[in-house]
């Protein structure tokens, strides 16, 4: 023990002239920095919006064009403000789509459109939505068309004649 100590002290004396810096173990308390980092992390995680809004693309024919469509190829959908869906092909009498709630009606509509389009691939769907209906109703119907891959559709305003046909006027 004693010997070791002396040798150590000797060593110190030996290097004293060179003035070697004494190594100090620096201990910085990192806790506050880490706290701030995690605070920022939570902030960015919560404010970040990963999903960009989706969009639905619509192609409408230009205003001037008048396309002639055979009656048998035209499926008209009429949607009232209380979300009753009437459909007919050509000049048939419109029939409603039954369903307990909106979702059931939409599912039934999707199925109907799919069947009709399979039966007649040239079918064009014309959507007429009542002006008093909500925008979401229209989007839901369009969504149903998109889901069933029906790309040939057009939008038309609901006129008083249409309302007469479906008996809401």
């Amino acid at each position, binding site marked *: 023990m004693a010997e070791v100590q002396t040798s150590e002290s000797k060593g110190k004396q030996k290097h004293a002239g060179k003035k070697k810096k004494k190594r100090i173990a620096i201990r910085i308390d990192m806790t506050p920095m880490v706290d701030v980092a995690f605070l920022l*992390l939570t902030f960015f995680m919560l404010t*970040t919006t990963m999903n960009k809004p989706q969009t*639905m693309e619509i192609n409408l024919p230009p205003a001037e064009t008048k396309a002639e469509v055979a009656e048998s190829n035209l499926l008209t959908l009429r949607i009232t403000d209380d979300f009753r869906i009437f459909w007919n092909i050509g000049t048939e009498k419109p029939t409603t789509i039954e369903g307990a709630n909106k979702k059931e009606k939409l599912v039934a509509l999707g199925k109907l459109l799919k069947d009709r389009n399979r039966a007649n691939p040239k079918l064009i769907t014309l959507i007429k939505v009542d002006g008093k209906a909500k925008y979401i109703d*229209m989007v839901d119907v369009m*969504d149903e068309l998109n889901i069933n891959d029906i790309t040939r559709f057009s939008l038309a305003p609901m006129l008083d004649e249409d309302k007469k046909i479906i008996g809401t006027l």
Partner: protein
Amino acid sequence: MAKAKRVGVKIDMTPMVDVGFLLLTFFMLTTQFKPQEVAEVILPSSHSVFKLPDSDVMSVTVDKTGNVYLGFDAQPMREAIFGPAGKLKAGMQVELKDLGRLMREARIRNPKLRTVIKGDRESDYAVIQNVMEILQKENITRFNLVTDLER
């Protein structure tokens, strides 16, 4: 009963902090602050998977009460169309009768503009229909409806 001996537990937090900083830098670099909105709208939801384009967007916003706002993502365009007052706003409220003219002016300045309609889910379809008629008259036959992803 012998009292349990208290052991000073020391966990090395370094890896956790490392991961924390990694995530922090990731989120800081990827985050894009939500562009300011002209009006508060609750978007309808759909299953559509098209993404909203990043630039050259002209948006027609329709809020719950049927007010119509026209907005652009590019600041110079806003200044050109709405004057200096509209430069810093995301968009301005417009009358339906002016909408067509303003859109025409904007499209002359930037023919690449994509038109999107942001409608509130509770707004009347009549207003949207009017907007779409104006779009059709202006020969904008391809446009997008902004929706949220259905969950």
